[in-house]
């Protein structure tokens, strides 16, 4: 449901019951006030000479003029006794003829003070009339013209009430009947019934309905007027949010004003920033992954092709009964080994280059790591006629790090040595504890690293050009990964070139307690 329709509905749903409740309450109060005033009127009349007149001639009480409609509404409350029309023994009207109660005050009947009491009724010139009838203790009137005493009032009085009221149905409009118990409780005038037509003149009701309708309309208009700009701002924000979403949250929503809509716009902008960040991270990961897959595919195809070439040559020789050269088998083995290393390295690069890459740090048993890595390269070293030896301290020695990356770093150092040491040469891996630190050395007696390459070994840019190509000097992707891994762990990786020749890499870092 639209906001405005909902607001209108809410206004109606709350205003209508309230107005109805107020109207009902008002009617009840008015009824009670009228009842009281009529009861007072009965007392005043009867005490002000009415009793005597009634008891003197109950069959003809009340006298005629009392039953006359008083065109201008009710007799006022508290009519002075003197204002009673003169009564003859036969109850005939006084010589003054038809008179309002105000006659006694010397004013014309039409000019009574009635408008003060019922201004609306007066204004609408509605006929209002009041009657007074008397009854004996048994609620039976001696006057044959008197109406039957209403049973519910009778019941109320018998139950002890001093007076009671009931509706008096008169054609064209409602009326009220009030029965009053007189203090003397005997004679033919022990009870009095006062009836008055027109408690709520129809004009008043119509007026009230009209007033209510006007009030509701004004209320609704006010709500609509207030909601208008808000609805418009929300619509604009909705449009902007849609546009922003379509543009991958690049454009922020306009923030103006300082209300809830402003807060909504700000909240959206914050969410959009977050979404954009996540989107970029995902895309960066995806790019990294895609380039990893592409690079891996490309890089693996080359050694794989070489491997297939070696295997084909071997097969040809076997089929033609020639002896297979040891060298071609060795090359095939090396190519396969290289391929395995390459894939691990590419996967390591993918992890290291990923934005916000974090290390999966855990306690790493360094002796086990050295043994694993040496075992990985031992078959190739053996096939090449290279001695690959290692020593680890008998005592446990561990460091905190990412076991996959550390293993790959050490593997690269060893693989590098094993690949470029001449057959008959040596590669040694020595792990030792030095105080609170560990030292992991990989040394070889190979050709060493040419001076012109030494400075560039650990340059990051060096990798870019040589990562995808196999460098004759052997300093490619592997060493830069080793250095990168060391740095991320807060370890140091140094290259030394001993005087005796060869190369010595040393990885140092804090050991676990």
């Amino acid at each position, binding site marked *: 449901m639209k906001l405005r329709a909902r607001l209108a509905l809410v206004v109606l749903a709350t205003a209508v019951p309230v107005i109805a409740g107020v109207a009902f309450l008002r009617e009840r109060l008015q009824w009670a006030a009228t009842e009281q005033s009529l009861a007072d009127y009965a007392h005043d009349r009867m005490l002000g000479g009415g009793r005597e007149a009634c008891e003197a001639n109950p069959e003809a009480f009340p006298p005629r003029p009392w039953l006359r409609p008083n065109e201008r509404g009710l007799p006022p409350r508290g009519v002075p006794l003197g204002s009673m029309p003169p009564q003859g023994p036969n109850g005939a009207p006084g010589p003054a003829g038809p008179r309002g109660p105000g006659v006694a005050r010397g004013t014309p009947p039409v000019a009574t003070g009635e408008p003060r009491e019922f201004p609306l009724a007066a204004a609408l010139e509605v006929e209002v009339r009041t009657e007074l009838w008397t009854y004996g203790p048994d609620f039976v009137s001696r006057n044959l013209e008197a109406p039957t005493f209403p049973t519910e009032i009778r019941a109320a009085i018998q139950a002890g009430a001093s007076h009671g009221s009931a509706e008096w149905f008169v054609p064209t409009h409602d009326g009220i009947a009030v029965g009053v118990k007189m203090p003397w409780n005997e004679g033919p005038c022990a009870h009095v019934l006062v009836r008055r037509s027109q408690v709520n003149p129809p004009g008043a009701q119509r007026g009230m309905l009209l007033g209510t309708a006007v009030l509701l309309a004004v209320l609704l208009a006010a709500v609509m007027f207030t909601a208008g700009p808000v609805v418009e701002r929300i619509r604009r924000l909705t449009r902007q949010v849609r546009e922003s979403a379509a543009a991958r949250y690049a454009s922020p929503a306009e923030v103006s004003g300082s209300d809830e809509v402003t807060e909504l716009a700000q909240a959206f902008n914050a969410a959009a920033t977050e979404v954009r960040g996540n989107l970029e991270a995902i895309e960066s990961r995806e790019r990294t992954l895609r380039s990893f897959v592409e690079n891996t595919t490309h890089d693996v195809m080359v050694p794989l092709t070489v491997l297939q070439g070696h295997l084909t040559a071997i097969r040809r020789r076997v089929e033609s009964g020639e002896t297979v050269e040891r060298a071609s088998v060795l090359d095939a083995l090396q190519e396969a080994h290289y391929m395995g290393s390459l894939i691990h390295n590419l996967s390591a690069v993918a992890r290291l280059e990923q934005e916000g890459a974090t290390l999966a740090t855990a306690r790493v048993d360094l002796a086990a790591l050295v043994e694993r890595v040496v075992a990985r390269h*031992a078959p190739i070293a053996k096939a090449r006629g290279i001695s690959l030896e290692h020593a680890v301290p008998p005592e446990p020695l561990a460091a905190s790090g990412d076991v996959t990356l550390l293993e790959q770093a050490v593997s690269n150092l060893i693989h590098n040595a094993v690949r470029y040491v001449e057959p008959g040469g040596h590669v040694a891996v020595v792990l030792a504890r030095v105080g609170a630190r560990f030292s992991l050395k990989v040394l070889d007696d190979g050709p060493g690293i040419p001076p012109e390459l030494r400075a560039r070994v650990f340059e990051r840019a060096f990798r870019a050009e040589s990562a995808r190509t196999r460098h004759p000097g052997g300093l490619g992707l592997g060493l830069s990964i080793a250095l990168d891994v060391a740095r991320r762990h807060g370890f140091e990786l140094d290259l030394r070139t001993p005087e005796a020749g060869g190369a010595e890499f040393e990885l140092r870092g804090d050991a676990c307690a």
Partner: protein
Amino acid sequence: MTHRILVVEDDARLGEQISSHLREAGFEPVWISRGDLALETQPRDFELVILDLMLPGAYGLDVLKHLRQRSDLPVVVLSAKNDTPTKVRALELGADDYVTKPFWPEELLARVHARLRRPGLARTGRIELGGLAIDAEARSVRVAGAPVELTRVEFELLLALARRPNQALSRAWLAEHVLDPDRDGTERTLDVHASRLRKKLGAHGSLVATVWGVGYRLDVEEEA
């Protein structure tokens, strides 16, 4: 003595290959290709398990957990997923070692040998290796039955190497743990002691091998 080894590997070619390499190396492999079948095996029937982590039927780490609840059989995990959390989890769950694919048959065999050897580490007072009989408590050495007099440092050197046969110890470690700390404790001094030890062991002197770039090692025939 043949060692029965349980191989849990779902790939048919790899499982077949591992089994055949183990057989050639003198082991008795039992190969199953499903994780849920691995859950039903009796650990006491085997001396080592080679466990792949990517398995149909049950996840390798669950098999490992299940196995560890019932026995402390050595487990070598085969991991194709080169991710650290899996490895760390496997080690936490009690795997003794892991080998990352691709691996060489020799590489796997080396890990298996290392795992089977480990519990047998000589910690007792008497060690007999390749014609050498070393009594750590009596501090005496016999070569081919004949007693040989060694100095304190020579004896400590031989004992340290004999406790880890076929495994090299670095000169730095030996210098620190074998040489008298009050005297000259350089690696050159160690070399002098090693050279004297070799001479005293006579024909068995060649057992004390110099390892290039590392240190020394006691070479003895591997008992299969």
